[in-house]
């Protein structure tokens, strides 16, 4: 079985699982307790935090451990908007964000915030000109994802950060769930002020993630209780989750340095471009691990089933929206021609893949096109 749906989730790394189990066995004490066992758990928790901050090149930054990317995105969007409300009520985001950002934005609109949604071009790129024109004194939060989960477009975060700093006082958040471990990310210099990371996208465990942000700019808390995580996320901190996440992040940096994903992507894109009735979504400079394509008048689901039958797992555009049937908001936003809209599939690489998998995919792909009566044009 070839698993090509790593943007939906990845297989947990063995060493991450080992850490998770070991921590639960040996350091299960509540890190808030003052006895020795509690102190040990706390030390371990803080070491994980320090390791993560060092990976993000922001040793004096802050981290809130969350239940995953969705919670971190919710906390960022709603928490920062509330924290900076005294400065204004204008927020900017894009049309192609993950639902955990988009629905949080919709909620904020009901609370009297004014949200602008940046449009994207046919390749899913925002326009920094448009961003610049929308920024104003009352802009308090800008949230722009780094890599789009459905088509892999990479947004120019450094340039966005520069514009945001220059033309507003807004906090810049980026959903980096799909890019961490694939592209360099840091919280210093020309990076965003806050980022979201999800463990299970980088061979960690489902149910954990984090929001990291620069020193001194906490969001307002969304849940209340014992005051853990400096009162920003109450609830006993899941030490083993934090350790496993820190480990997954450390290991994933090795992926960032691997060039294979990029090579496979180039190979696959060149291969697919030989076929007339298939389009590749996103520009050549898209994220190295995602290839989204659309078939002419063939349902994505049909292709998924065919590949499944041949031992290859690919997905329709995103796992979150794949069951709803209708074309997703990203596909709408890039104004994909009607005849391609329902034919999107996504191939996403992970560390368990090899070049041989790409070769096999190409063979199956050729069979599929043959079957459709659309030979190599």
């Amino acid at each position, binding site marked *: 079985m070839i698993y090509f749906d790593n943007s939906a989730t990845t297989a947990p790394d063995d060493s991450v699982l080992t*850490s998770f189990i*070991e*921590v639960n066995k040996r350091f299960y004490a509540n890190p808030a307790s*003052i006895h*020795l066992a509690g*102190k040990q758990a706390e*030390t*371990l928790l803080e*070491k*994980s935090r320090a*390791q993560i901050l060092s990976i993000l*090149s922001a*040793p004096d930054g802050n981290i809130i451990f969350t239940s995953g990317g969705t919670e971190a995105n919710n906390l960022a969007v709603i928490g920062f908007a509330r924290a900076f409300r005294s400065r204004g009520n204008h927020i900017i985001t894009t049309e192609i964000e993950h639902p955990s950002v988009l629905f949080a934005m919709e909620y904020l609109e009901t609370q009297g915030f004014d949200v602008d949604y940046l449009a994207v071009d046919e390749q899913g790129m925002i326009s920094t000109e448009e961003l610049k024109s929308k920024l104003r004194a009352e802009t308090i939060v800008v949230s722009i994802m780094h890599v789009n989960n459905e088509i892999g477009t990479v947004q120019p975060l450094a340039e966005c950060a*520069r514009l945001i*700093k*220059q*033309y507003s006082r807004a906090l810049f958040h980026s959903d980096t769930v799909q890019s961490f471990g694939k592209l360099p990310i840091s919280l*210093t*210099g*020309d990076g965003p002020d806050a980022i979201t990371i999800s463990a299970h996208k980088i061979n960690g465990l489902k149910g954990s993630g984090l929001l990291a942000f620069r020193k001194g700019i906490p969001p307002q808390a969304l849940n209340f209780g014992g005051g853990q995580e400096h009162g920003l996320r109450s609830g006993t901190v899941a030490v083993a989750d934090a*350790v496993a996440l*820190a*480990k997954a992040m*450390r290991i994933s940096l090795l992926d960032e340095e691997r060039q294979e994903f990029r090579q496979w992507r180039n190979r696959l894109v060149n291969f697919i471009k030989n076929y007339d009735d298939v389009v590749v979504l996103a520009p050549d400079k898209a994220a190295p691990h995602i290839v989204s394509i659309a078939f002419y008048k063939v349902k994505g689901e049909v292709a998924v089933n065919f590949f499944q039958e041949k031992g290859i797992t690919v997905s329709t555009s995103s796992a979150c929206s794949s069951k709803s049937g209708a074309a997703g908001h990203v596909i709408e936003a890039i104004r994909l021609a009607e005849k391609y809209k329902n034919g999107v599939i996504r191939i996403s690489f992970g560390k368990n893949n090899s070049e041989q998998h790409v070769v096999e995919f190409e063979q199956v792909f050729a069979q599929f096109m043959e079957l459709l009566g659309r030979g190599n044009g």
Partner: protein
Amino acid sequence: MEWNELLIRYGEISLKGRNRNVFVKKLRKNIKEALSDLPTVALQAERDRMFLFADDKRDMEEAIIRLPHIFGIQSFSPVAKCEATLEAIKETALRVIGAGETAGKTFKVEIRRTDKSFPLVTGELQQEIAAHVLQNFPELIVQMKKPEVLLHVEIRSEGAYLTAKVHKGAAGMPVGSNGHSLLMLSGGIDSPVAGYLMMKRGVSIDAIHFASPPFTSELAKKKVMDLAEKLSSFGAAVRLHIIPFTEIQQTIVNQVPDNVSMTTTRRLMLQIADQVRAEIGALAIVTGESLGQVASQTLESLTAINAVTTTPILRPLIASDKLDIIEIAQKIGTYDISIQPYEDCCTIFSPSNPKTKPRLEKVIYYESFSDFAPMVEEAVKNRITVDLPLQKQDEFDDLL
């Protein structure tokens, strides 16, 4: 932004006369020590400045984070190196400027042309580069006098060197250039700050701590070790002496009246500290005492406590307000450690109404019923020493 080297400027020490070399050497050694775990870092010290190189990008980033804590550095600037061609300089200038804040800042280009063979003269070069930068960062405002962003370009035969950002250093004197003292480190907020201020004046320190197990916990000890470790991050290792104090403390509780027991406790601590000081060859004792904070910190009380020794007792915080002390503690990162809730030996037996004006003759009279001298000897002899920072052998490493 990737930096090729760091230019380090000396502070006060560049004012020194013929002793300057000694100070520079000390500073170099302290920087080396503070960065000893970064394998690719190399240092080159010159008369007025020092250069730091690192082959690994992460080592360089880490050095930029640690340097601001090392005393004796006035400021430092990350330097980008490029080919000495106009095109390369222009391109690098944009990257260097882009790495910092630009919105609404005043700006100037400064050229130093060590290599006179470079085709453009200084004036032309300045205009070319300034025009290029302003085109790309139109929000900068040109200003010749005291600009906020000063792009400095130095053209040497081997390449061009560009800097724009000046990071503030910790200033002060290189630790160790001004002698050695023993710091009485309690675990509270004040004493680490006192140690920090003395280190800033170039004094290297050992620290002494009194532990009363089982009344005080391992965690209290760990907390003091963390504090000493924090202090060691300012450019010099710190040796911590942990004194077993339980027996003496119990004797005091049993023998000396409640309202002067605290004065006696302090006097014995100071005696022990003084013996340790003599053994390690330190010249003074440093305390975190601040006038009027607690009963032991009245002038009368200090007089009674101080009567046990003629060694100089340095009290850098004596006239500081609590809030000012807290501010420094927060700045240097000891505050969060100090406020951890573990009992220390000063609080476990503290009397309910200690005398704020103890009379020395009375105190000496009460102490005369017990023979503390052998206990003091014993405590000094049985001390445990820990060298900080600890060589990390971490049980957690395999988990992370």
